[in-house]
């Protein structure tokens, strides 16, 4: 199957530190890929490079064979990427529902003219409700996000990312900070979304959940490629165990 997203020869430097060195990977349509590696391996930097938040020293990033390396973040997002944040970042002045409604109205804010002329929010409200139901937080729709616990906000991040109707969902540690029960439930939700056809790339430290829901692993260590392949087989490789588990 053809790659929907590919990143070739990604090198990122922060001052004198090389955060990523010549890293290449690709994701196939409908695949669930997990990026793993110890802290500081460069996983978040790689996702931020793909979305254009971090500028690489060298890279070639493509969506469906279209080169996007020189595009700004918002243009890449409009080509089908969606990113959830490691540290939850809801719009604090909005309710849970409004957060997702805004994302669902992405076509109405594509340019200033459209955003001035469009007034109605009813269809976006309907869409947003569907996404909130999908991640099982519809009952919190009218609550201000400032009153919501982390478990709800992590789900809100996923709902908001889905609302822009992406082709590829990039999840940065969606299970971090959740207890095992919450993590397991959210992992099930993410897996279900993936099974419905969404190409998913997930950074996650919760290895038991990663192994349970991923189709493939891609391991980074100290900014370099270490291994990739079937989750169980990758975890058996001695260099992965040494780098990731320290044993």
């Amino acid at each position: 199957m053809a790659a929907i997203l590919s990143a070739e020869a990604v090198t990122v430097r922060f001052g004198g530190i090389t955060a990523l060195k010549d890293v290449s990977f690709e994701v196939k349509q409908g695949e669930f890929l997990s990026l793993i590696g110890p802290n500081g391996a460069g996983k978040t930097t790689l996702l931020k490079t793909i979305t254009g938040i971090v500028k690489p020293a060298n890279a070639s990033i493509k969506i469906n064979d279209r080169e996007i390396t020189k595009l700004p973040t918002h243009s890449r997002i409009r080509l089908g990427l969606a990113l959830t944040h490691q540290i939850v970042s809801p719009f604090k002045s909005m309710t849970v529902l409004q957060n997702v409604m805004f994302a669902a109205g992405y076509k109405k804010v594509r340019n200033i003219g459209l955003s001035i002329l469009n007034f109605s929010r009813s269809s976006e409200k309907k869409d947003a409700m569907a996404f909130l139901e999908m991640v099982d937080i519809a009952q919190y729709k009218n609550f201000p996000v400032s009153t919501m616990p982390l478990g709800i906000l992590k789900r809100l991040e996923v709902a908001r990312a889905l609302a822009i109707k992406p082709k590829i969902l990039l999840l940065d540690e969606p299970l971090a900070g959740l207890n095992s029960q919450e993590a397991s439930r959210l992992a099930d939700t993410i897996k279900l979304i993936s099974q419905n056809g969404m190409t998913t790339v997930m950074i996650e430290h919760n290895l038991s959940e990663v192994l349970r829901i991923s189709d493939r692993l891609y391991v980074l260590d100290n900014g370099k490629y270490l291994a990739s392949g079937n989750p169980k087989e990758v975890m058996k490789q001695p260099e992965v165990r040494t780098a990731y588990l320290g044993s």
Partner: protein
Amino acid sequence: MGPYEISLATGVGIYVILAVSLNLITGYCGQISLGHAAFFGIGAYTVALLSKLGWPMYLTLAAGLSSAGIIGVIIGLTSLRVKEDFLAIVTMGVAFLFVGIVRQQEFFGGEMGISGIPSHGMTKFAYLCFVLVFAMLSILFSWYVKKAWIGFAFDAVADDEGTARTLGLDIKSYKLTAFAMGTSMAGLAGGLYAYYTRFIVPETFGFIESITILSMVAVGGIGSTFGVVFATVLLVMMPEVFRFINDYKLLLYGALLFGVMRFKPEGLSGFYTLLTGNKEK
């Protein structure tokens, strides 16, 4: 209505336009501006100079609005590179720069300003109505912006630029649009002011005036159109109604600004929300 009341109400109308215009930039889009009076001044000086050249009133007002808006977009470009405290310092610089330039240039009348601005050709009451129509249009425009999707996008930019960007929003366009809208309206207010007083001096558009306008926005409730209008009417009228306050106007504005930020950052609109449970959104 006597001449004094008409004059006072005209001033209130001009300040309403100014406060609502700053609220678009700072309240809606979250871009702090400590130099808004400079755009008020750009509008006033443009209108004063062009009207003395014999341009008709509607053309001078359009030119005042446009010149302030164009320079506003140029200043807005800095908001793409700096934000929060740094943007506050840059916009503060704009306030000083404007006064510094007009004070030193003979073309702008120097320290003495520009006098003998032609009359608007209306009765004072008709001019009051003229100003109030613009004030009302500004309020309606501001209300529309808040309710349309552009207002929703401004909310997102004000809350978290980074997140808005990762949802596909071209935040540069939205920030520049906020500056264009807000500074154009300030330019219009400046033009109306020039015809109102028929005499302008640089001090009127200085840093203190920028802080005065910001006080009106902050006291009313940053982002709330009706709160800002209410606070503007209150803050402009109060020193006039209670004469003894006039001598301590800056002290009062400063104390109110401090008090609101310390005890009720949502301003008067926050009290309204508290009392009624309704949020203006």
